[in-house]
């Protein structure tokens, strides 16, 4: 149990996907302009991450031992089709949710956080529950980083940012500062 909690906390804050592994930077730059879109993107991410973790575990346990060279290809194919299926299901089941979340799903396909999760999970040999904890932690971490970034960016919109710092330069400096602040979580729950 402590093991699972550590995996979750570690993926969420100690080794935050965005701020420590630089995964999912595209949505971090792209959809972090408004807090509500950031929240929705985060929710969509958590959802897909959990499904991915499930699929990766399935592939790793039952298929890939026989064809290890297909690992990457099978991951990417599964993720792409997964997102497609999820999109279709949501569209059918809840058109309202689809309108809110739908447009982010295709973006997620090429989001390295998803593939990264599958690969990290494989490299570390996580089992089913560990994989779930990892996925939830990673998803929450991504959402946290996205929402923090979005609320900060909304705030800086009204500031007189110097010309040279406008745009991406400032975003990276904010991200760097956030990353510095997240260093405070290093060692969380590990050695006692």
């Amino acid at each position, binding site marked *: 149990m402590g093991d699972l909690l550590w995996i979750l906390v570690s993926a969420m804050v100690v080794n935050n996907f965005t701020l420590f592994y630089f995964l999912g930077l595209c949505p971090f730059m792209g959809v972090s302009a408004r807090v509500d879109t950031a929240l929705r993107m985060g929710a969509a991410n958590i959802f897909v991450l959990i499904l991915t973790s499930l699929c990766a575990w399935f592939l790793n346990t039952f298929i890939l031992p026989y064809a290890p060279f297909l690992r990457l290809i099978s991951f990417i194919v599964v993720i792409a089709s997964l997102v497609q299926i999820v999109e279709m299901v949501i569209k059918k089941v809840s058109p309202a949710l689809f309108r809110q979340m739908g447009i982010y799903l295709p973006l997620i396909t090429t989001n390295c956080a998803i593939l990264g999760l599958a690969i990290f999970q494989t490299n570390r040999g996580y089992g089913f529950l560990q994989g779930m904890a990892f996925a939830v932690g990673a998803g929450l971490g991504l959402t946290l980083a996205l929402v*923090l970034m979005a609320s900060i960016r909304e705030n800086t919109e009204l500031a*007189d940012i110097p010309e040279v710092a406008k745009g991406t330069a400032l975003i990276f400096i904010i991200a760097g*500062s956030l990353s510095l*602040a997240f260093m405070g979580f*290093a060692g969380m729950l*590990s050695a006692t």
Partner: protein
Amino acid sequence: MTPARLLVTASPHLGGADSTPTIMWSVVGSLVPVVAVATYYFGPSALLVIAAASAGGVLTETWFGPKGALRDGSAAITGILLGLTLPAGLPLWMAFVGGVFGIGFGKLVFGGLGQNIFNPALLGRAFLQSAFPVAMTTWPTAAPHWSDLRGDNLAIPLMSPEVVDAMTGATPLGLMKFEQIGTQVSALIMGSVGGSLGETSALVVLGCGAYLAARKHLNWRIPASIFATVAVLSGSLHLLDAARYPGAMFMLFSGGLMLGAIYMATDMVTSPVTNKGCWVFGFGIGFLVVVIRLWGGLAEGVMYGILLMNALVPFINRATQPRVFGTDTKQVVT
């Protein structure tokens, strides 16, 4: 009889007593006793480190900041506060780098005073902490003579300091976390312990804070809620397992909590604008401090607690917007 010239401005024509420079310089003034105590304990090293950090901040503001920005005193505050969070033996060039980073990346890229998200002093310190982890956790002990330097302050820029092991000790929090050795609360209050320059004078800091709060130059709600949260959380944990978790007084008076709660967290620019938000902000800092100190890998969490909550401030501001007069009424309009 007719006045030679008349001023025509928009109303109101009266102004409150405080102006931004007044507030800033009074904060600078209130730091004088803190710096004095630091100098008493750490000798000339204290003054040198604070001066180097301030020089870094002030020079960056002069070179890259808007014209006349120095007069508002905010760069000086950042520099002095940064200096107070550093160990006495830190090479001066590192303190200078911290000041440059704090003002440059923590403030000027956001457009200068009032626009930054993170407390510049703490951002500078967080940078130093990550850049030079060894030097930043080398805590000098008392020197044989007051006038001795407490470490290799004068290390050549970019070069490593020479550390004499015998001259270094540990902070009370470090002792508690890594060696399970407690420190007397009386020693904490008197300041006769190791730590950064501003950590050793909790009572003086508290007094200066009271002065600033009385002059309304800081929002008392922030330190109050930080203290309350830390006291209640650590107090109840202490009741659960006294062997594992230190008591509330120890948590309150050890480390940078006093300095952080009174001078860093209350930085107006990087704290919430609403009073309700200030309570939330203080609670968050207190919570993070306890979590990082007790379950994290670091001995001290005040800096990170404040920086993390700084990042949340825009969100808190949004969530605690006051309800406009007449929009919350349940009265039936007849």
